[in-house]
């Protein structure tokens, strides 16, 4: 038996996978990793990840091997080091597999000029799925662990590391994007041509009131010529909704399942991952596509 203990939980550390689907008509949000590009890359290094990825934001977690040994890989742009059992310190990098032995502690300090990072564990973390997914929705209390991770959480990984060979991939090109192509939203016609012009030519700032549910933007007010209150309807991540204060919100992975605000536009799937990595105060612009 191998086991690890969370020695410092970090901020907003949760278990995520590629999402929980087929339940949104019962009020269950899709959730899943905010930046799905990174867990897609980590699959190349740790193919047997069992869909149990640890997601962290800003401040990373520290994990210590309590018993046995584990093979892991970190994804994202982050500062980290390994405190060995014999008190020596080891450098380590994202997208390179790491072998950790009893007493070793991986310390992820923080993400650099980005928000989210991930850890993949060979053979997963010994968790059971909840509604066919390992993703956590902390607000709804759904997940194989239905809350953020805490200090002292322990995970048991029954299978031993398959091979100590070090595997790495070139650091993926996850360049920072601040101009987003968007498609017309279902309520595009709720906004006048002038307001749409402000949406396209305006600069919006990511605010710190952003989380797994949505990214709140600050910029020129986008007031609807019709109404900011529509009959609730199904929504999907990436939708840009505009409540009555005119400040747009990009809906992210833990969306409410139906929503009553007009949606001016919607991002494509990969741009949801891209926008999730923009820290507060980042300035962004939108480019409305007419063909979709």
């Amino acid at each position: 038996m191998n086991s690890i203990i969370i020695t410092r939980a970090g901020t907003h550390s949760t278990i995520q996978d590629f999402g929980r689907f087929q339940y949104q008509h019962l009020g269950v949000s899709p959730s899943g990793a905010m930046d799905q590009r990174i867990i897609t890359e980590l699959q190349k290094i740790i193919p047997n990840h069992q869909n149990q990825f640890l997601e962290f934001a800003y401040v990373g977690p520290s994990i210590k091997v309590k018993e046995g040994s584990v093979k892991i890989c970190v994804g994202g742009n982050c500062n980290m080091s390994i405190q060995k059992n014999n008190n020596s310190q080891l450098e380590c990098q994202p997208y390179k597999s790491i072998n950790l032995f009893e007493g070793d502690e991986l310390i992820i300090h923080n993400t650099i000029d980005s928000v989210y990072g991930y850890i993949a564990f060979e053979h997963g973390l010994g968790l059971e799925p909840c509604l066919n997914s390992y993703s956590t929705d902390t607000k709804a209390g759904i997940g194989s662990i239905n809350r953020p991770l805490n200090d002292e959480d322990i995970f048991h990984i029954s299978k031993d590391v398959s091979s100590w060979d070090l595997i790495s991939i070139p650091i993926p090109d996850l360049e920072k994007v601040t101009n987003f192509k968007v498609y017309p939203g279902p309520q595009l016609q709720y906004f006048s041509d002038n307001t749409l012009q402000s949406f396209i030519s305006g600069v919006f700032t990511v605010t710190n009131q952003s989380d797994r549910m949505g990214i709140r933007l600050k910029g020129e007010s986008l007031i609807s010529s019709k109404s900011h209150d529509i009959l609730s309807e199904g929504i999907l991540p990436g939708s840009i909704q505009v409540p009555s204060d005119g400040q747009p919100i990009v809906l992210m992975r833990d969306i409410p399942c139906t929503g009553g605000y007009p949606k001016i536009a919607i991002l494509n799937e990969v741009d949801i991952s891209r926008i999730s990595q923009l820290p507060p105060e980042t300035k962004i612009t939108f480019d409305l596509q007419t063909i979709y």
Partner: protein
Amino acid sequence: MYFKGINSYGDRGLVLDFGNETSKSISQEVNETFLNISNLSLQSLNIIPSFNKIVVIFENSKIRDQNKDKISMKMKDTKSQTNKNVTKTWEIPACYNEDFALDIKIIQKLHQITKEEVINLHSSVRYYTYYIGFMPGFPYLGDVPSQLITPRLATPRVKIPARSIGIAKNHTCIYPKVSPGGWNIIGQIPFDIFDLQSSYPSLFLPGDEVKFYSVSLSEFEKIRKYNFSLNELIKEYSS
């Protein structure tokens, strides 16, 4: 037929449009269509019905476009639009005891009626489940009798107890678990309606009919102690 057509929702979604009005007959068509297209085995990630729309979500635009024709064909095929007998009719015990009926006085005062009248009116109607949303397993039921129509609370409550029955505008609901919310709370039911251990976790489904019947506090506590599973609840309280 209220169905108006199929529109795109970004690069990977579709919206089946049933107009801008809301009524039980529109919802019945929405929910029958929901069952029909759920049975098409589409390569969809989610199919989400609401008052007058169905949103269908796919992984990408290619899969979306491949599946759009299947939905269009099904919508034209008027002969086999049958899927009516899969929904359930529920008789749900409700305790309107003052310990649970946190906002019943607001409704009494607004409509100048007694507590007994609120209870009799609320439990006199067979409600229709418009859809499930807001939080896991939360049913939007309606319509409440006109003498009970009440706006949301001016200041939403931070913590509504689990299993609470609420009224807002012409709808009534049950909160599956503790939640913030703005509905007027008038009672509580004695069992959970959402169970993560079950492969089909929600007691109510869109299109189900729900009728409440009033039970005393001691009867409520007796049922509460049984700790029914979802399957037992289906046997005990639905037909």
